[in-house]
């Protein structure tokens, strides 16, 4: 494997890891606030459809982005109502959200475009185009550093850079601001927030709204950056992989970057090399695809470092005493 191939693989990992990263950070805000979210998949799918649909109609990727966020937000509202206002089962609500998105997107897509549940192919301004970083062309022949700059760092869409910027930003919000402190507190012990005179309900709704925005970005990137349009079920389990990455990262933003890029790399590798011969064993592609899930189970089982979710996660808050 030469250097150029490695760069290509990493570049591919970044592209494939970006939607995972955005979705993972989306889940992080919700779960850190004590609302379990297995509906990331559905929110991404909804965003993918609405972004592609609006981009196709208006020819503007930016309007598509707004629509994508709106789509994810509508499902966030459903999940928020179920988990916060009606104190329902957050897991059941998440399952419902996923099916809702799965059915609804195809239904509307067929009604609007009559192309068998897909949107028209996007091109031009309807897609987020790769951005060439300044000087990338000039240095592309410089060995190693130039190659890295030109092929790996440069040439991604704006959403990729946004996703990476979201990592330090999330960290900063979570650990350096008043909002972050309260958000983490409400996921650990909502009573502590309530007795301090802060509204648990408002905090949690704010958190799931951020989840809506970020999963909207994730879905929009899928349909208008990574691909050129919406096809049905195009998230293909990425919402669940993002969930796995979130657990793997133990609900922390910087490790979330590592986990999602690792899973992105795994996908890149299995796309490029269907079978990996390690001499002793032959790793089939199916194994590579299952690795994120297997790792998550191992982490959950507590065999390598225990993943402890936010303590109040999954439980509706009922004022007591």
């Amino acid at each position: 494997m030469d250097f150029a191939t490695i760069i290509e693989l990493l570049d591919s990992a970044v592209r494939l890891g970006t939607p995972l990263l955005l979705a993972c950070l989306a889940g992080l805000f919700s779960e850190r606030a004590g609302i379990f979210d297995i509906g990331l998949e559905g929110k991404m799918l909804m965003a993918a459809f609405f972004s592609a649909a609006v981009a196709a109609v208006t020819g503007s990727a930016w309007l598509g982005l707004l629509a994508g966020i709106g789509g994810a937000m509508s499902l966030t509202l459903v999940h928020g109502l179920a988990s916060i206002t009606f104190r329902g089962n957050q897991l059941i609500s998440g399952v419902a959200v996923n099916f809702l998105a799965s059915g609804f997107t195809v239904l509307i897509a067929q009604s609007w475009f009559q192309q068998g549940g897909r949107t028209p192919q996007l091109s031009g301004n309807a897609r987020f185009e790769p951005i060439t970083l300044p000087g990338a062309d000039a240095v592309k022949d410089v060995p190693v550093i130039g190659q890295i700059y030109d092929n790996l760092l440069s040439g991604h869409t704006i959403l990729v850079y946004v996703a990476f910027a979201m990592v330090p930003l999330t960290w900063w919000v979570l650990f350096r601001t008043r909002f972050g402190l309260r958000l983490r507190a409400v996921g650990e012990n909502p009573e502590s927030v309530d007795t301090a005179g802060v509204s648990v309900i408002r905090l949690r709704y704010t958190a799931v709204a951020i989840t809506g925005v970020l999963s909207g970005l994730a879905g929009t990137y899928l349909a208008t950056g990574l691909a050129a349009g919406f096809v049905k079920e195009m998230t293909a389990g990425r919402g669940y992989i993002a969930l796995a990455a979130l657990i793997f990262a133990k609900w922390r933003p910087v490790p979330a970057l590592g986990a999602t890029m690792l899973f992105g790399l795994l996908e890149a590798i299995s796309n490029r090399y269907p079978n990996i011969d390690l001499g002793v064993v032959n790793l089939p592609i199916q194994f590579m695809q299952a690795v994120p899930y297997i790792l998550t189970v191992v982490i959950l089982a507590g065999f390598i470092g225990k993943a402890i979710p936010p303590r109040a996660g999954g439980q509706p808050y009922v004022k007591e005493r």
Partner: protein
Amino acid sequence: MEKTPKWIDVGLIPLLNLLIAFVISGIVVLLIGENPVQAIKVMIDGALGSPYGWGYTLFYATNFIFTGLAVAVAYHASQFNIGGEGQATLGGLGVALVCLAFPWPHWSIALLAAMIGGALFGAAWAAIPAYLQAKRGSHIVITTIMFNFIGASLLNYMLVNVLRPRGSMDPATARFPKSTYLPTFHDMPLIGQFFGKSVPANISFFIAVLACFLVWGLIWRTRLGYAIRAFGRSESAARYAGISPVKIVMAAMLISGALAGLMAINNVMGTGHRLVLNSVEGAGFIGIAVALMGRNHPFGVFLAALLFGFLYQGGGELALETTIPRELITVIQALVILFTGAFDNMLRAPIESFFVARANAKKEA
């Protein structure tokens, strides 16, 4: 302690929730520019209007009975088994291995063996999440989701690399020997004359009905069922009574996985006659809606499975006859889960407080 009457709890509220789900679905149909009344007509005609329709409706219902029972049994032990999809997938593998292993002399023997194979594989796929939940507190919802994906990958590997016949490009097993084909409704005495040759409903339907009775007996007539229900209602009281949490979680989940795995006798052995990728087609997830709708009672599960069988077959017809895609069914399914599950308190809280207030007023009067 005042409580609402039982008919409100198990009758009125679920029906109202279902009604809301259907009304919203109707609005969705309107939104995409179709006529909801017309749509319902097409669905009823397609699913219930002919023996052919019934044959499909009951075929789908059979799948959903198994997966619905699977969710229900786990739920009685307060475990949310979201892994029915993976357990049914593995069940398919078990059934296929049994069918291909041996030139079975008669379908009945093959069926018995296949049931054991399917149930064992399904139970095995539930066993690891169950063990991790019982012993290490790993959240069973997340682990069963993960096992759905791992199961899909495993099946993919088995079909592509191990079970695919030489020379075939299809990721599927070889055809099962003819001697393992199960009698369909067409082949049965008395009812056979009504059903055409192509009807997929088969003897598995009756096994599913039998499973309803057995699950009912298990939950309400045996010691184990008693312990499962006690544990599910109150873990602290179960500890007082000396009921072991580990044993109950394991037992309930193994039975749940076995039921999901049994589904494969219908879709793999009953009609497919070979194992293909994604033969489960989401039935594991529909089991969640079925169990919620049926209030985790086998009879309720049976009715809800019929309803979803109807929706599935009707939805298929809808896609053929109109421009409404069959994904409408997924939307209805989602709304049913949403309203009977997650939004349950929306109606329940006001209705219950109404009845409590009325009971109190009566008392004072």
